[in-house]
Structures are given as structure tokens and as C-alpha cells.
């Protein structure tokens, strides 16, 4: 079992004719993802890696039954593309695009939540259900099938921690990259909720980092509602105040967004927090007995 994505999911790739879109489509297909169509306005009728390209999302939905979409579209085009995709009836959208304007993210989030559409990102590394399918840029060889659900604000750190878990014989049910923008479309708490309800997941791992309040909010959700055990690692103990650390949302502002604040909130919620990434393995083993 898994959340949001499996081998049957009929996937659309938007921005499929660009450099990243083409390269990643190849990797996703090789992994086994059921990619049914691509969209790039003006490129309808072409093919990429044998995948038919359409001008409009509605055509891809009508003719190919696309139900989930991954975005490799330029930042300025994300807002309109998201509206078009939501209106076409796609139920899951993964926005890999970096540097989406925050005001656009606010508008997209509001539009999607009114219509019950799930988005991941912006700046999501993607989502992978190991052994079945992946949407986004997560390299397949870092993951293996199993029963741990992973939520990460960082792509590269998710690879690292999942590879460590896999090396210790522990695979993942689904790995979700929520991105580390100031306004993520889907919160950490919402993803925890999905893993808590998934019969294929025994434990959730949170990979957090400095900035924002996602981890603090998740800690409250874990304390109040979550049944399954949770283990976390929060990156950036030594980050200086006021510096943006590569992710738009990775910034300590005064006392807000520090690892200390996140770690103590999570610990109060009953989460075991690893000091360094590799320690996650031990903590997961302990929790699962």
C-alpha cells in the first residue's frame, strides 16, 4: 500500500518538452511510472519517449485519462497551469518548479483547496512509491519498497535518509517531498494524516529543516491525533540568523524557525528526534522494536 501514488496512477507530465521534462520523463518511465500523456502548449502532436504530447490538459484528461500531473513548467507559468489542471479534473499535482512567486502559491493553494485537489510543492522533489511509480526528480536507486512513510522538506536529504534506511533493510511505503517554500501547498500535518490512515505504513519519518512553523504544527497534530509512531530529523543546528539557506523558506527569523523550537515541539509531541541523519535508522529500529 501507499499514499497518493501507485503503479496504476495515470500520470501526466507538464512541460514535458523542456530539458528537465524530457530527462525526467525517461527516468520516470524506466522506473515503471504509468505516464499516459504530456502537455506543452504549442507542442501538441509531438512525442517524448513515446509519450503523446497535447496542447491542453483537458485533452490529455479526455483522451488519455490522466489523473495526476507533475509540473516541469517555468515559475511564471505555474499559476495558470495549476488552474488549468485543477479545472480539468486532475486530483494530484506535483510542482517540481522552483522559484514560484509566493503570492501565486497562496492563490493556487486557495483555489485547489476549494476544489479538493491535492498539490505537493512548490519546489517538491516529487513523490515516490518505491517499486511502483515516481513523479518528480527523486532518483529511484535511493529507495526500496517497505513500510515507512517519509515526509521531507528537502529532496536531497530525503534521498540520504531513505538510502540509509534501505541499507539497514527498511524500505518506504511512499516518500513525499513537500518542498521548503514559505507557503507549501500541502502541510506536514496533512501528509502525516494520510500516512496514519495508510494500512501499508507502520511509522512516519519527518525530514525537516529550519524556517517556518510546519514542524511545530505537525508536532501538535501528532500529540492530538496521530496513532502511528513518528521519528524526525531537523537540519540546520548551526544556521546563522537571517540568512536564507538555499530554500526560500529555510530562514531563521529572530527566534522563529530554529531547529531548537522544532525539536522541542516534536519531542513534546512524543516524536524521537535524531541528532544527525544517520541516527534516524536507530530510532526507527527502536520504535518498531
Amino acid at each position, binding site marked *: 500500500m501507499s499514499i497518493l501514488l501507485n503503479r496504476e496512477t495515470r500520470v501526466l507530465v507538464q512541460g514535458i518538452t523542456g530539458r528537465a521534462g524530457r*530527462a525526467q520523463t525517461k*527516468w520516470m518511465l524506466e522506473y515503471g511510472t504509468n505516464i499516459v500523456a504530456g502537455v506543452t502548449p504549442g507542442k501538441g502532436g509531438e512525442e517524448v519517449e513515446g509519450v503523446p504530447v497535447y496542447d491542453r490538459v483537458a485533452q490529455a484528461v479526455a483522451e488519455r485519462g490522466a489523473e495526476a500531473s507533475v509540473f516541469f513548467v517555468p*515559475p*511564471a507559468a505555474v499559476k495558470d497551469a495549476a488552474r488549468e489542471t485543477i479545472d480539468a479534473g486532475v486530483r494530484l499535482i506535483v510542482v517540481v518548479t*522552483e*522559484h514560484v*512567486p*509566493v*503570492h*501565486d502559491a*497562496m*492563490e493556487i*493553494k*486557495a*483555489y485547489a483547496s476549494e476544489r479538493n485537489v491535492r498539490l505537493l510543492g512548490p519546489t517538491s522533489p516529487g513523490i515516490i512509491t518505491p517499486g511502483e511509480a515516481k513523479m518528480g526528480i*527523486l*532518483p529511484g*536507486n*535511493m529507495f526500496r519498497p517497505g513500510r515507512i512513510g517519509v515526509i521531507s522538506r*528537502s*529532496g*536531497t*536529504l*530525503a*534521498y*540520504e535518509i531513505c*538510502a*540509509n534506511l534501505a*541499507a539497514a533493510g527498511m524500505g518506504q511505503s511512499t516518500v513525499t517531498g513537500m518542498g*521548503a517554500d*514559505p*507557503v*507549501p*501547498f500541502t*502541510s506536514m500535518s496533512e501528509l502525516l494524516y494520510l500516512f496514519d490512515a495508510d494500512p501499508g505504513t507502520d511509522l512516519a519519518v519527518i*525530514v525537516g*529543516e529550519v524556517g*517556518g*512553523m*510546519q514542524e511545530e*504544527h505537525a508536532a501538535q497534530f501528532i500529540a492530538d491525533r496521530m496513532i502511528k509512531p513518528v521519528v524526525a*530529523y531537523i*537540519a*540546520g*543546528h*548551526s*544556521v*546563522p540568523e537571517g*540568512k*536564507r*539557506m*538555499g*530554500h*526560500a*523558506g*529555510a530562514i531563521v527569523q*529572530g527566534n522563529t524557525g530554529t531547529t531548537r523550537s522544532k525539536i522541542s515541539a516534536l519531542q513534546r509531541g512524543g516524536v524521537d528526534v535524531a541528532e*544527525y*541523519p*544517520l541516527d534516524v535508522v536507530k530510532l526507527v529500529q527502536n520504535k518498531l522494536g
Partner: protein
Amino acid sequence: MKLYEFEAGDLFRQEGVPVPDFTVANSPRQAREAAEKIGFPVVVKAQVLTGGRGLAGGVQIAESPEQTEETARRILKSSIRGLPVNRVMVVKKAEVVQEFYLGITIDGLTGCPVVILSTAGGVSIEETARTHPEMVVSNQVPISAGLSLPEAEKMAQKAGLYGDESARIADILHKLYHVFRKYDASIAEINPLVRTMKGEYLALDAKMDIDDSSLFRHPDLQLSAEDRIASPLEKKGRQIGVTYVELDGEIGIVSSGAGLGMATMDIIGRRYRPANFLETGGAISEELLYHVMELVMQKKGLRAVFINLYGGINLIHEGARGIVRFLQEHPTDIPVVARALGNRQEETWQILREGGVEVVTDTATEKSAEYLFRRLEKAR
């Protein structure tokens, strides 16, 4: 991107938020001339991108042309929290009767703008919220609807304002929301907004932070990022398109992701101090990593460089060629240790090894860092 007070003040003025007459000066003489036009007394304010200017002596009153020149000279020579003052703002001094706070920011959890109004201005809003929560009115605004004038009036009334004052402040708040949306701000704040003896309402400070990702649609603002970065190395990072944060240590760090980079800092920090944080972003090429190496190696006092790459969206084998090319052209005595995993890892290792880079293939950064630690012990 943070705006200087005078830049935010210009935007406020354009959009109808009332600000006092002001001029920007970068020499004592200019400051004096500006003050003579504006009329005395004036306030001379350091233009730096940090708070706490007042306490640091960066905001001073001047009563005469001579005093203005002298004050401006002193402030222009100073630095505030490590930032040199290159400009001062000369502004007509207002006779303040009451101070208010107006601010708009973004709630990362709900994804809504948060509009805040307080009848206690001139102090930190966090402080007021803690000590006098009843004096702070806060409102989550649905982004599709925006903040209407009647909504703004409701907020003012809830804060205990009434009559003409309520209407005037609501109007300014409504305009501030317009500025916030029009310029893609992540913060738009007036602290304090004041009522003067003459019954005017004026923004005596202007704070704005504009979302970096939206700058492409605000070419009219002509904001230069490099003008706002004090560290020459951080400036260089911006120019080549990577995030470089200068730190106070001896191990250079290169990573292909922000989270990985921060974790690498944490891990290296167990034994040594990182000299920098560097994140390449998702567009690694031979050229980019050549420049990345050039940048990282410029830091004084380096004892080693630790490179931590993942091939997700990144073409790490191409990056490897850039690293090797730089090192061939600029041989170094310090160890350069690289870890590279993901798509095309074997090819990447081969390129790095052939170019004299020490490659560690552990899946855990901790183990690779231990290799580096041992390596540095040996070199001692």
C-alpha cells in the same frame, strides 16, 4: 529582498500611503541641502537593512543646517550591526500625538495574508502581542477576496478606534494591503503610523520585503540584489547563480541541495567549523561547478573542501568535470573530498578520481565526514 526604508517609502507614496517629505543623501553636504529645503527640525536616519537603528544611534534629530551636516557625517561613517551606512534619509520631524502599528505578512501554514493592526506603535509587535494582546487585532485574509475597506474598518473598530480616526487608519491599512499585493511583498509594515499635532496621519517608517521569486515581474523597481549583500563572496555566489553563505570556519562545503547542505554543516560541525554553506540548486553543469570551486577556494584559511552531491535533477557527471578542470588549472594542497550519489554515480566517481579528487562512496554523509576527519588528522 528587503527594501531600504526610502525605497519602501517611495512605493508607499506612489500608492497613496501618507509619508512625510523626505530626501535621500549620500554625503553630509547633500543631507544639509535636503534639510534646508524641508525645513527644521529634521530627522536623519541611517539607511541599512536591519532593525534596531535607533538604539545603535542611526536615527538622530537635527535643528540646524550645521547640525544636520555634522549628524549626517557621523552616521555615514558608522556601521550598524556590521552593515556600513552608505545613505541617510533626511525627513521632516513630525510632532507625534499617538503611534499605531500596521503590518501585513504571510502565514505559511494557512497560506493567507495576515493583516495586523495595533494601537501600540513604535515598539515591536511581538512584544505588544505578548504583553497587551488586547491591543493587537489580527486578521487572516482569504487571498481571493482580499482586504476590503469595510473589513479594514471593522479591524480598526475592533482595536477600539472610532469616528474619523477609524476611517483614516482603515483607509491607510487598505492601501497598505494594495501595496503588499501589487509588489508581491512577504512583509509590508508601518511602525509607527502616527497622528500628528496637526491631525495628519503619517507613516514614520516603511518596511518591505519583496519575494525574490517575483522580482521578474517587477522590473520597474530596479532592485539590485548585489547592492544588498555585504560579503563579496556572497555577492559572487549570487552572480554565478548559487546560494553561498559565508561562515567563520575552515571547511569549505559544496552541496547539491539545501537540506543536504545544512545537514552537512551539522555533521562537519561536530569536529570542525564550516567555512561556508553552498547550495548549487538544480542546474549543475560543468561550467557552474568550475565557478563553484573557484568561489569556495577563495575563502581564507581553508583546510579542506567537502563536496556532497546527489544526482536527482542534477547532472553530477557534468559537474564532476567542472570540479576536475578547476583543480587541474589551480592545483591545491588541501584535501578535496567528494561524495556523489544518484543517477550516473559510477561515471561521476571515475571522472573525479581521475582528476585527483578523493571519492567516498558511503551512503551516509557521517561516514564520509569521518573519512575527511581522519584525513585531516593525518595531515596534521
